[in-house]
């Protein structure tokens, strides 16, 4: 900030041009008087409505949500982003990078990295290219290899301890901290929590860290969620003050990851269940449709037979015409007759059983048997009639076979198209619509195919 105040201001101008904000505030901690001075100098005579707000140096006021609360008194609602309440929070580094990108046409290929810690002799800031290995920067800052015990990417409170020095600088590498054993000794053994609630006094998100700790430890994740676990920003203030040296943040991370895993598995299971149900529904529908078709055919066959019986003795041609349109499926009729016979047999067995044991409802069973007998006879008759009709209409062929073939081909094409579209769709809503369309198209295609087959076989 001290060196690039002008670039920052230029970046702010660009952001301001894009967003047209009513207020612009720059928060600077009060332990950086030179940065405040530098910014004040470039801001004199600036046309923008920019306030420099000096804030107390108190961790973690640099966090986006905490800074917004500090500067504006507003709180970002849980689960929302600052833009939802009309605030955009940008780093000064971002502002400078925007200036370079827009005015100098320079892409984001470098960033300022602070290299510090007890293990380096000359702690300093570098303008490092992204991808530079840590080792190069550490060497430039004169690292004492033998003193290095912990290497952090980021600050001491939230930084990530890295495994070795060959890690490259990335866009979020603001700091490389090479700490010695004395600077960051290993944490002492965890002691029992004495519920002193010091963690609660320091929590910037006003959570109950101690309760979250108990819930995480006891795997009571529902309760942890209810106590707003996911509003934890993992700043580490609680673990910093804990007199029992409990690694509280680690417990929260564990609980969060467990909950996320559980949720992912739940989603997967839900998805599988939905797919299974859809499949069941489709099979059910197809069976019902088949059943309906079968019934319709059986009725038509019965009608045709009746017609033939009434016109018995007349020339066979008039009887053959309705038989052809009805297109009786011999196979299906045979099955129907067999099924009717089986049902009848079962009902008779039941009746016999009931009579032997003198159970209730014998009358009802008797009636069922009688009804089934009639049905079975009807089915048998229909079958015989159809066999006769078949023999009679052997010469007849469907006139619109060609048309039917074309229709079936077109339906198949539609199905393929829809399938392809479905595979390319990401959107949940669109997917569901497409699936419905696809099912309809498949049905139509199946029906046409069926009819085609019947006609060609007939």
């Amino acid at each position, binding site marked *: 900030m001290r060196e690039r105040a002008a670039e920052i201001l230029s970046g702010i101008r660009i952001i301001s041009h894009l967003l047209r904000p009513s207020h612009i505030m720059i928060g600077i901690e009060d332990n950086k008087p030179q940065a405040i001075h530098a910014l004040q100098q470039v801001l004199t005579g600036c046309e923008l409505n920019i306030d420099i707000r000096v804030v107390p140096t108190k961790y973690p006021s640099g966090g986006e949500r905490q800074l917004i609360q500090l500067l504006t008194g507003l709180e970002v609602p849980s689960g929302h982003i600052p833009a939802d309440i009309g605030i955009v929070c940008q780093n000064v580094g971002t502002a400078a990078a925007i200036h370079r990108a827009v005015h100098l046409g320079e892409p984001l290929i470098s960033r300022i990295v602070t290299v510090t810690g007890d293990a380096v002799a000359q702690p300093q800031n570098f303008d490092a290219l992204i991808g530079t290995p840590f080792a190069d920067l550490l060497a430039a800052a004169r690292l004492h290899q033998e003193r290095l015990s912990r290497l952090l990417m980021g600050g001491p409170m939230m930084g990530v301890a890295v495994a070795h020095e060959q890690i490259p600088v990335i866009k979020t590498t603001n700091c490389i901290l090479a700490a010695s054993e004395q600077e*960051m000794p290993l*944490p002492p053994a965890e*002691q029992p929590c*004495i*519920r002193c609630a010091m963690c609660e006094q320091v929590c910037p998100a006003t959570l109950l860290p101690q*309760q979250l700790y108990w819930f995480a430890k006891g795997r009571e994740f529902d309760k942890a969620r209810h*106590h707003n676990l996911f*509003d934890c920003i993992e700043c580490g203030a609680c673990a910093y*003050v*804990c007199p029992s040296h409990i690694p509280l943040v680690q417990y929260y991370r564990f609980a969060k990851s467990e909950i996320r895993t559980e949720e992912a598995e739940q989603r997967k299971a839900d998805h599988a269940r939905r797919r299974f149900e859809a499949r069941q529904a489709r099979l059910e529908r197809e069976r019902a449709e088949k059943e309906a078709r079968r019934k319709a055919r059986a009725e038509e066959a019965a009608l045709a037979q009746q017609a033939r019986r009434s016109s018995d003795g007349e020339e066979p041609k008039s009887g053959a015409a309705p038989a052809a349109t009805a297109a009786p499926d011999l196979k299906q009729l045979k099955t129907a007759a067999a099924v009717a016979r089986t049902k009848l047999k079962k009902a008779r067995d039941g009746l016999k059983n009931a009579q032997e044991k003198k159970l209730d409802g014998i009358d009802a069973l008797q009636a069922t048997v009688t009804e089934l007998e009639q049905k079975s006879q009807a089915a048998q008759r229909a079958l015989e009639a159809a066999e006769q009709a078949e023999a009679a209409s052997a010469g007849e062929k469907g006139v619109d076979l060609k048309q039917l073939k074309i229709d079936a081909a077109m339906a198949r094409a539609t199905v393929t198209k829809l399938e392809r579209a479905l595979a390319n769709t990401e959107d949940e809503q669109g997917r569901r619509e497409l699936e419905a369309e696809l099912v309809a198209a498949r049905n139509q295609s199946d029906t046409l195919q069926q009819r085609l087959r019947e006609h060609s076989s007939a």
Partner: protein
Amino acid sequence: MSLIRVSSPHLHKGNSVAKVMRLVMLAMLPGIVAMTLFFGWGTLIQIVWAALLALGFEAAILKLRQRPVLCSLKDGSALVSALLLAVAIPPFAPWWLTLVGIFVAIVLSKHLYGGLGQNPFNPAMVAYALLLISFPVEMTRWTSPFVLSEGEGWQVAPFLDTVKAIFTASDTRWYDSFTGATPLDALRHRGGLTTEEVWRQSNVLSQGIGAWHAVSAAWLMGGIFLLYRKVITWHAPAAMLLALGLCASMFFGFDPDNYADPFFHLSTGATMLAAFFIITDPVSSATGNRGRVVFGAGIGVLIFIIRTWGNYPDGVAFAVLLLNLAAPFIDLYTQPRSYGHRSARRGGGNP
């Protein structure tokens, strides 16, 4: 090269349970000094005896529970419990009374519940209540405060005689000459007299009350030190003192003949000790700030009720134990409003 890989944060304030306990013990110093001045060597002897017992019991039970002995002994929590019990019981109490008390405090009410941090009740108060119920005679025979009487100078029971009185308990005559009622006792068992008459007749009220005020002031000093060092928060003590003061003012305002004035309530008995050292015990109290206000206020009201209408002259132990029971419940219903939430949550995990 092997770099240490641990989870953030990588810094620690350097605070520890042992440090907290040391600060509490340091804050108890003024009170202990004041008690020794006004009630003789008995207090100090009890403290040393209780501390030794506490360390012994703690070590033994840790061994039995197969926990690291030295590491847990060093945290000082047993010592603090011992100190609190030692200053709560009469300075001339016989040695076995302390023994039983410490056994109950350390073994029964702390380690049988799972050790440090797991006890639902304040160990010192469990022990105190048990002793008060089981040995009412010994527990209510408090020492008369030593006062500067004219011509005789500062009278304090000689050290060796005190030791003898505590550990042999044979010379009851000598012992009796030093004991007397506490101000709360005097007011409690006053017969048909009004408060003003008691005030004039009773020795302890007319002459000895100054000693009790001084002791209370000493505890208050220690409490302010703890507040300053941020070992405790103001919520529970302030709520308790305010609730007790309000209750007392209300009844004193209506009927000054039958009720003691609020200053009397605040400055005698164990009020100040309780406010800053007993109800601020983190383990057994409510944990949230709002919860601690409720917790403290409940104790204040209960202390007044038990003192005024109960069977016992001082109700601190019972009030604390009752509110210890309620602490988890209080915590559930006094959660703070978290950042970014419209309202505070209530209850447990089943919304």
